[in-house]
């Protein structure tokens, strides 16, 4: 065992990359939940985004087009969820599970021709001399554009929820859909848009795994990241900046256990690979005492009948 092979600067740089899929998906889900909808289909939307992004990136040769396709793919799948829960008034838990099962199947079907294919690489952002600063350069200025987009997204969601009228309406719908309806807001329409935003974010998160993190396509490659993203929203008490913090925490654990595997620590690989899931559970336990931050109408079906 040789722990000195773990370079702390590279570790921090890598954990930002490891955190990005979780960050994108969790930020999207945060918006959905703030609108009062619990979409458990994050895993399904992510994996569909992973294959849509991968396939389009391979076909067009442009990773950026791939990411756009992934966002569209995730949003289309989430539209199915919106149809089920907002129009057909189906149970949100069951519909979310259905979305995940369906997404896993559909992605496997779409991805058959892409197993073993190498996707085009997405170049890193060019910050010129900034990237040459010791320590800070590799950590802050040597990443791909999507990673920065993820951080910008958190800031944008935070500012929108806190300072804008749109954010206020979204929160009103999530806190009390009957009151929001009485005020004349279109609850179903707002929620549908929020669900699609969540789907697009999850799709991009999935594509980040298949195009940048891994980069290749294998069936079921998201391996529970969507579920960790769901847990992260609870962990973050539905607050955007805490999502960022949480995502980096989980990214750090994932990356650290990979590095420990590489360094040949005496702990078997399987037990290291379990650790992100176990830590998710532990964090959930510690934080589940406080549910006061949850949106008031979370998970409840809205029907303007009374």
């Amino acid at each position: 065992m040789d722990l000195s092979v773990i370079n702390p600067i590279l570790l921090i740089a890598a954990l930002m990359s490891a955190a990005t899929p979780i960050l994108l998906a969790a930020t999207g889900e945060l918006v959905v939940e703030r609108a009062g909808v619990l979409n458990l289909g994050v895993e399904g939307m992510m994996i569909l985004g992973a294959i849509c992004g991968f396939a389009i990136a391979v076909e067009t040769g442009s990773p950026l087009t791939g990411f756009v396709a992934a966002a569209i793919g995730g949003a289309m799948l989430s539209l199915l969820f919106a149809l089920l829960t907002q129009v057909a008034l189906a149970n949100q838990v069951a519909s979310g599970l259905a979305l995940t099962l369906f997404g896993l199947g559909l992605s496997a079907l779409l991805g058959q021709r892409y197993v073993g294919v190498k996707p085009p690489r997405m170049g890193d952002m060019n910050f010129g001399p900034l990237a040459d600063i010791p320590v800070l350069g590799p950590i802050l200025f040597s990443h791909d554009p999507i990673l920065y987009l993820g951080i910008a997204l958190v800031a944008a969601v935070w500012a929108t929820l806190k300072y804008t009228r749109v954010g206020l309406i979204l929160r009103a719908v999530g806190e009390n859909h009957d009151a929001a309806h009485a005020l004349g807001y279109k609850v179903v329409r707002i929620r549908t848009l929020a669900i699609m935003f969540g789907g697009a974010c999850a799709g991009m998160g999935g594509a980040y795994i298949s195009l940048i993190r891994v980069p290749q396509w294998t069936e079921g490659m998201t391996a529970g990241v969507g579920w960790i993203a769901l847990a992260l929203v609870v962990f973050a008490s539905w607050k955007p900046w805490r999502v960022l913090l949480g995502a980096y925490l989980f990214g750090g654990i994932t990356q650290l256990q990979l590095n420990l595997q590489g360094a040949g620590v005496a702990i078997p690989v399987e037990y290291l690979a379990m650790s992100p899931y176990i830590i998710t559970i532990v964090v959930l336990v510690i934080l589940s005492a406080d549910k006061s931050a949850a949106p008031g109408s979370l998970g409840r079906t809205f029907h303007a009948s009374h």
Partner: protein
Amino acid sequence: MIWLEKRPQPSRFFAYITPLLAVLATFLFGGLLFAALGKDPVQSIITIFWEPLFGEFAFYYRPQLLIKGAPLVLIAIGLSLGFKAGIWNIGAEGQYIMGALFGAGVGLAFYPAESVLIFPAMVMAGALGGWLWAMIPAFLKVRFGTNEILVSLMLVYVAEQFLASMSLGLLKNPEGFGFPGSRNLQQYDSAHNAEIIAGTGMHWGVVAALIAVIFAYVLLARHRLGFAVRVTGEAPRAARFAGVNPGRLVLFCLGTSGMLAGLAGLFEVAGPAGQVSIDFNVGYGFTAIIVAFLGRLHPIGIVLAGLLMALTYIGGDIAQSQLGLPAAAIQVFQGMLLFFLLALDLFTNYRLRLGRAETA
């Protein structure tokens, strides 16, 4: 304008008819999917749903219906109790794996001793393994209010890693020339979950599934605990007034479903699968969720839904070898079924009305 009016009482007619409508809709859209994949839709549907039952090689496929249906029904029965009460155990796959590991572990520990007591001990251990794994989310929910959906699901990934570690380590066949996977339990008489009547597919898992169905039916229809389950799902506040202890109900529902999933895992690993290997689990724990919903969370419905799902697995295999239909297409087909079921359920609780809505 079309609008929805909430029914004062859920429609019994639609509650029974929606699964059938959902199956028909899935045939239609599944057919379109198969056509999009360049396969003859009618031929595909016939291959999947007719061949295994009445085709030339039906004598071979019919027993498979029991072999694949039993674990699905066994798991789904347990899940349905929780789902009825609004307790969401979606980690049955993990409990299934742990049941198999515990059960197979006990069996392998006795190798090569022969005794009639070994198999019953394995069954007990399998049930215990699944139960213990489900008790983690149950205990955390009761004690700390942790979300059981996320915990039970996270534990699936933990169980999968544990399975990998076991089949490469502790339970690895010492005479297996270094290949991963345990000894084959089919070749170890005392531990083999053999067919009770040869050639029928009837093994002890099928018997256990039937017992579970009867047990669940009686529980829900006649027992106080079944009443507590139903009333908690339909009206949680009323349940509290009726003296239902929510914590105990969580422990009961999760514990029972974990136990049944563990049993399903044990019967599978000691019978049809034969050995503990990295990927002996094929996702029954997740498909059972579809089975539970398709069966309307009702024991008899679950039996029918389990057999139908088993049929899609078997038919899917045939279609894969004969028509080159990808295995994933069947997964999509199963997911579609759940979608249509959930969507069509609208008509159970709501009525379509034409004309102007007076509210809104």
